[in-house]
């Protein structure tokens, strides 16, 4: 479904601050595969996601989605196929608009944005049903502005918006990192449910090593712009957090940044 070939991204090229953020990254993901991405700060995880989404353009290499080369496609066009949830809960929604208006904007993804009414009666019933499944009581607050929701509620809403029209690829950039532990757990549960139900090809960055192993079907570790570990299937099932930490030290030749990385 997703194929990344020799992806290279260099920031501040030619200056003293030059940084190779992606160093010949190759990654292939099958339909329905749920990959979790770990790595210390500056490893290139977010850059990889942003390059796939089109926020940054690659300096080299290609990105293919469902066989189509999207390397030079502008961000907004790719968004017709790619759903995204960001780390900052404020980024995923329009705060001064209502819950139903936000959902309507997401629901029109890939459709024409003409002068047809933004929300129909049928849409409202559909939104209500979808919101009810989040079990956060949002189905009764559809006319409220999103700015009044908590971070966790906004993140759950963003997740719903990213998947309300089935995307070919779902990108999650530490989408629970800014949330309280209990609501973070709920959002992760929801993520699992939605991904399984729609058989979504998903790429999730996380700082939580335990979450990286408990969720998804495959885990990759990045360091200095390269993928240094890639485990799935039986091998992954037997892996522990401790082993992962040890592997990181061995393969990157550095101590894991314990301050930022949550081990448990």
């Amino acid at each position, binding site marked *: 479904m997703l194929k990344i070939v020799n992806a290279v991204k260099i920031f501040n090229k030619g200056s003293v601050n030059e940084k190779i953020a992606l160093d010949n990254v190759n990654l292939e993901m099958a339909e329905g595969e749920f990959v979790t991405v770990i790595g210390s700060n500056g490893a290139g995880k977010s850059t990889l996601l942003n390059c796939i*989404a089109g926020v940054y353009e690659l300096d080299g290499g290609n990105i293919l989605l469902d066989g189509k080369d999207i390397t030079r496609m*502008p*961000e*907004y*066009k790719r*968004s*017709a196929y790619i759903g*995204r949830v*960001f780390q900052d809960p*404020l*980024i*995923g*929604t*329009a*705060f*001064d*608009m209502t819950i139903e*208006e*936000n959902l*309507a*904007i*997401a629901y*029109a*993804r*890939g*459709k*024409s*944005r*003409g*002068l*047809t*009414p*933004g*929300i129909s009666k049928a849409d409202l019933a559909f939104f209500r049903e979808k919101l009810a499944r989040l079990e956060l009581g949002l189905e009764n607050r559809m006319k409220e502005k999103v700015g009044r929701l908590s971070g966790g509620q906004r993140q759950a809403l963003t997740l719903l*918006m*990213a998947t309300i029209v089935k995307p070919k690829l779902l990108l999650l950039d530490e989408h629970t990192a800014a949330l309280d532990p209990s609501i973070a757990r709920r959002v992760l549960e929801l993520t699992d449910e939605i991904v399984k139900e729609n058989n979504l090809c998903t790429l999730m960055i996380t700082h939580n090593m335990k979450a990286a192993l408990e969720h998804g079907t495959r885990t990759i570790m990045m360091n200095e712009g390269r993928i240094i570990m890639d485990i799935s299937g039986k091998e992954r099932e037997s892996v522990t957090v401790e082993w992962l930490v040890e592997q990181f030290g061995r393969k990157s030749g550095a101590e894991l940044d314990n301050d930022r990385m949550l081990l448990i």
Partner: protein
Amino acid sequence: MADIIKGAAELGIIYAVMALGVFISFRTLNMPDLTVDSSFTLGAACSAMLCVSGQPALGLILAFFAGCAAGCVTALLTTKLKIQPILSGILMMLALYSINLKVMAGKSNIPLSRILGVPTIFSPFLDTGLERYIALILNTAVLALIIVLLYYFLKTRFGLVLRATGDNDKMVRASGVDTDLTTIAGLALSNGLVALSGALLAQYQGFADIGMGIGMVVIGLASVIIGEVIFGTGSLLRRLIAVVLGAVTYRFIIAGALELGMPATDLKLVSAAIVAAALSMGTIRDKVISLAGRQAALSRYKGGSR
């Protein structure tokens, strides 16, 4: 007295059309657009020239589209050439000054006097029973039509993403929409309304003047902010009506100040002061609150001896 109130209401309704335009750029696109100062005059110029040619109604329509074109250019400078929004507006404001003079055939003032026999949209009703109220009726009708159209437009699929652009452009792009396109459409619509307002004013007051748009953006911002402070920021319809009421309130404030003896030359100073005060209200309130908190903490620390 009644005439002062009537005059303020008539002007308020005309300026409300301009304020709705400013609302679109300032609130829904989150971009204070200075093109307004000149697109207002552009509208007045187009409208006056067509009145002179005997086509006052066509003048209003043409003024709207001329304003749209001006807004498009500003938006293209911002989105495609990446010039800062404020600077794009300033550049267009300057460029339009020359264009406005060209539209007005090189003259800085176009009189539309009844004596000269120049028709306006109001002139067919002169010498009828409606003469006294025709300005109020026609302007209100135009304003009502605009509010209805705007309300439904902002609720369409395109309208929703237009409103979301100022709120959160990342989210709009993540939903598959080109934010350059929404910005262009938004600024076009905004300046179209501003120009229409200028066109109405020219026909109402009986002349177009090259300097009539100076400070218009400030009046628009004042109207939007006064509307929000007094009438709230709830649903979309409420916000639109708040802008209109804000514009009318502003005219009443000005009429009152003039009545109390304020020299007309101080108008722009007062307008600027109102907007500066309104925009800084949040910051001042926060400062006062934090200062009060510190005082309270200090007095606790000293054992309440103060």
